[in-house]
């Protein structure tokens, strides 16, 4: 519409261009929600973990063991998958209180999804909440969910160079768990190279080696989660 007489015939004069300085983090909405979640978890007296790995590394198997051996059961689990609630059912059978998030085609969990799922979880008498992220080594690394600690899981069947290929995820982890150590020999896992790669990529991370299937090595991880290990 014309700016002078209100008619449609004249072209309105173009407005001058101007610059708006914003300096706003792209994920500021997620970050705000994550801060809210963190506060919420703290008020419920929960220690919270964001568990990340590739599909098939054994996240759910590890959490089944954790559900059975955590000193003050039950543990809570919010589990993300593209489809099905198989994982939540497995975890409930192991004694966990589990809520499934079906993300559809979303490749990661975000803080708002976790907040919604948390609302469905009964946290009475619970002091450990694990968020099992969607199996993916890329996208979930960028999204803070409000967790206190982040654990990256790597299984011996995936090869020693996984941390070199997906550095962002391993660099963001407080701990790295090498799983399926019972299979290490069978698949020719080069432990020394794997550990060298991990300490080069993620020098900040505490390292655990275990087998979620046999339960071997689980104690050290439980002590760390319980705040009793250095």
């Amino acid at each position, binding site marked *: 519409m014309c700016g002078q007489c209100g008619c449609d015939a004249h072209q309105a004069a173009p407005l001058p261009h*101007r610059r*708006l*300085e*914003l300096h706003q983090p792209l994920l500021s*909405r997620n970050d705000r929600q994550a801060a809210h979640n963190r506060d919420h978890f703290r008020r419920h007296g929960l220690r919270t973990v964001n568990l990340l790995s590739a599909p098939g590394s054994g996240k759910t198997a590890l959490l089944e063991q954790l559900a059975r051996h955590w000193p003050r059961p039950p543990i809570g689990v919010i589990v993300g998958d593209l489809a099905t609630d198989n994982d939540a059912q497995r975890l409930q059978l192991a004694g966990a209180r589990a809520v499934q998030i079906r993300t559809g085609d979303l490749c990661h969990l975000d803080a708002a999804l976790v907040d919604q799922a948390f609302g469905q979880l009964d946290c009475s008498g619970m002091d450990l909440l694990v968020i099992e992220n969607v199996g993916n080594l*890329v996208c979930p690394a960028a999204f803070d969910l409000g967790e206190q600690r982040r654990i990256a899981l790597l299984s011996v069947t995936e090869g020693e160079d996984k941390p070199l290929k997906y550095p962002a995820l391993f660099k963001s982890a407080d701990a790295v768990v090498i799983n399926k150590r019972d299979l290490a020999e069978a698949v020719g896992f080069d432990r020394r190279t794997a550990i060298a790669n991990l300490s080069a990529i993620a020098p900040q991370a505490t390292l655990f080696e275990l087998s979620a299937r046999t339960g071997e090595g689980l104690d050290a991880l439980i002590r760390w989660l319980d705040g009793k290990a250095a």
Partner: protein
Amino acid sequence: MHELALLQELCALAAAAAREQGARQIHRMELRVGELGGVNPDALRQAFAVLAATAPWQTTELQLDVVPTRCFCPHCAQAFSPLDVIHACPQCGAISRQVLQGRELELVALEVS
């Protein structure tokens, strides 16, 4: 894969800021993406190309600046640019735990009218 989700956040932020400032059109969005931000700049550009085929983004340009990684070496007391994903100091070889820049994922500015 999450570049499309990030792009939606970007457009929502930009549209809200433009609206608040009484602007009618967004001509350019300036974005800073750190090498360690977990974002593939090409994927982001491609996602934007899809979006830019639709109104009101057809005349909007996306300016994407990649921020190179810089680390700090406590032994040499100086900043350095790592040669690869292992943040080893080129002077002494120590692995740095301190990233000074490279994690940015920021909408810097808009050009509007």
